[in-house]
């Protein structure tokens, strides 16, 4: 497949990078990324990946756009209030780059659909807002041998790690099990700065770009933490857990599992 003149112009700032070139751009155009959650993290990730020329992007979200989302979920506009987020995000991506194939999937992820949802994709971005979903995505990606980017944000802090099959710790190596509902603060209770979601979601997009283009070093086996108030980034090396329940030598989790979560936490 050769790029048209218009494509060469659109992607010229990528192509001019010696690490990237036409070859890297072709890899992006053949790449397939699934973004789970069209919210604070998913919005910037989706916009950058569409703009970058990723060939196919799936966007999963069951909710509708709400006024309280717009402070940080920048792929949605005021006119989108009440519209399904997956559809609104699809329109936002196509407005940036009509060449990208975008699949809008209006669904919550659960143990019954996660393996089917991730199957067709090369890289998964976790942009969800609750622990059951974060553990579910981790387990499914480990089981399916898919690379993914995990991230979490709260107040003025964010953190992310990239799981690459066979390399480094998975999310469950670090945290083992979800905390009980209400045991740790959520963004809805504690707040979050919109631009912080932009920083962390953009870092997730960068990980996807590097993975697809095959350049640089991924954030695998490490947790990057970001303190926005002090502008401090730290990269913490992570050990693997030899007895991890999903990626360890003798896993007890061999199929995706659902954890209970209060319904109100899933809808906002």
């Amino acid at each position, binding site marked *: 497949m050769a790029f048209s003149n218009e494509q060469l112009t659109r992607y010229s700032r990528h192509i001019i990078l010696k690490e990237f070139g036409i070859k890297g751009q072709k890899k992006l155009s053949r790449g397939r990324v699934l973004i789970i959650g069209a*919210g604070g993290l998913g919005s910037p990730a989706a916009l950058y990946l569409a703009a970058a020329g990723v060939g196919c992007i799936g966007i999963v979200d069951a909710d509708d756009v709400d006024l309280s989302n717009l402070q940080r979920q920048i792929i949605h506009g005021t006119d989108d209030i009440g519209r399904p987020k997956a559809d609104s995000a699809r329109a936002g991506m196509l407005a940036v780059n009509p060449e990208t194939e975008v699949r809008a999937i209006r669904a919550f992820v659960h143990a019954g659909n996660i393996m089917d949802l991730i199957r067709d994709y090369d890289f998964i971005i976790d942009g969800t807002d609750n622990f059951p979903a*974060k553990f579910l995505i981790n387990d499914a990606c480990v089981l399916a041998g898919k690379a993914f980017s995990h991230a979490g944000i709260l107040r003025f802090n964010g953190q992310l790690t990239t799981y690459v099959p066979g390399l480094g710790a998975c999310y469950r190596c670090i945290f083992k099990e979800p905390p009980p509902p209400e045991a740790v603060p959520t963004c809805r209770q504690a707040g979050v700065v919109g631009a912080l979601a932009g920083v962390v979601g953009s870092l997730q997009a960068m990980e996807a770009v590097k993975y697809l283009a095959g350049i640089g070093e991924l954030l695998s086996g490490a947790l990057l933490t970001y303190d926005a108030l002090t502008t401090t980034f730290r990269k913490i090396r992570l050990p693997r857990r030899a007895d991890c329940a999903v990626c360890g030598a003798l896993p007890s989790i061999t199929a995706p599992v659902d954890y209970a979560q209060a319904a109100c936490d899933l809808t906002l």
Partner: protein
Amino acid sequence: MTLIVAGTAKEYPDGINLTRLIELEKVETPMYVTVALNNAFVESGGFETAVLKDGDTVEFLYFMGGGR
């Protein structure tokens, strides 16, 4: 003794264990923090018996559930 906690070297009383360090550092949600001591995870049941030595490196890893 000097410990490197969350990347910063600081002085602490000799011979404290992880439970005491968690108190001194005012760790939020201490029940649910993951601790890495010298790049190895310590099970939460092992905080009492994990006595710290000069030069040890401790990282606290926190649940951060937001994203939307």
